């Protein structure tokens, strides 16, 4: 089912703030096996000029993807999430995410395309801290595969 093109440009309300904790960053860094002390040791992070431990570059995806749930689960959009795969992912950082941040995400549908029966959805998530400063933008391309085997 082709998705409704009129949803292109639609922006969803900002999410309630996500509070970034030191131990959550540590848990994520351990899960990816990354021992960089900037993720776990506040003193090491300060030596690099950061006020507290920072998060690995892809950490913020957990926050932006949860926010994108507003789009993915929008019954009016009608995306079949059981057939969705992650196509592309990109981040552009103004600064790293760090412990103590309270981050709100504003999700916008940038594009909807249909190719060989697949629905392709581009979602942009703008992440701001509680002072309103931009932290990072995340672009997520989701591909909802056609129900039948149609093309590659």
């Amino acid at each position, binding site marked *: 089912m082709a998705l409704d093109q009129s949803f292109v440009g639609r922006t969803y309300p900002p999410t309630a703030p996500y509070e970034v904790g030191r131990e959550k960053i540590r*848990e*994520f860094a*351990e*899960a*990816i*096996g*990354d021992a*960089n002390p*900037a*993720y776990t040791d506040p003193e090491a992070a300060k*030596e*690099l*000029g*950061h006020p507290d431990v*920072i998060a*690995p*570059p*892809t950490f913020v*995806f*957990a926050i932006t*993807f*949860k926010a994108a749930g507003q789009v993915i689960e929008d019954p009016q959009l009608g995306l079949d999430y059981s057939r969705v*795969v*992650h*196509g*592309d*992912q*990109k*981040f*552009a*950082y103004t*600064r*790293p995410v760090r412990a103590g941040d309270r981050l709100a995400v504003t999700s916008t549908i940038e594009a909807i395309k249909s190719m060989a029966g697949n629905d392709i959805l581009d979602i942009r998530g703008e992440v701001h801290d509680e002072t309103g400063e931009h932290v990072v933008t995340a*672009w997520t391309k989701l591909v909802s595969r056609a129900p039948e085997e149609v093309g590659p």
Partner: protein
Amino acid sequence: MTAKIAYAEVEAGTELPARTFPVTRATLVQYAGASGDFNPIHWNEKFAVEVGLPDVIAHGMFTMAEAIRVVTDWAGDPAAVVEYGVRFTKPVVVPNDGVGALIEVSAKVAAKLDDNLVRVDLTATSAGQKVLGMSRAVVRLA
């Protein structure tokens, strides 16, 4: 931001130290918990096969997280990464054999940009297959 590599020291073609990252089923369970992505294709073989996959596959975001370590370890300060994007081209298949899979990552400076920025192109393969495409980072050097 305090990168330990100076812009003046690198040129287009400079190679970053390559790395190989092992991934087992246990790694995927740990990543699922830390990231909140509990999609069963990343831990349930029966489910993965039912939806047409050869076996359990790694989270694409796990592979993306591993690949950029080549850049963050090189630059010293992870905050040196100002842009990072990938395309998920092939899955990393992780068998339940106690060994798992390997993700092999290499990277090189593709272009020097203005403002002490460089573009780094990454290559990530597993079992001989390219698992990330268009994998690029923009990095601010000292």
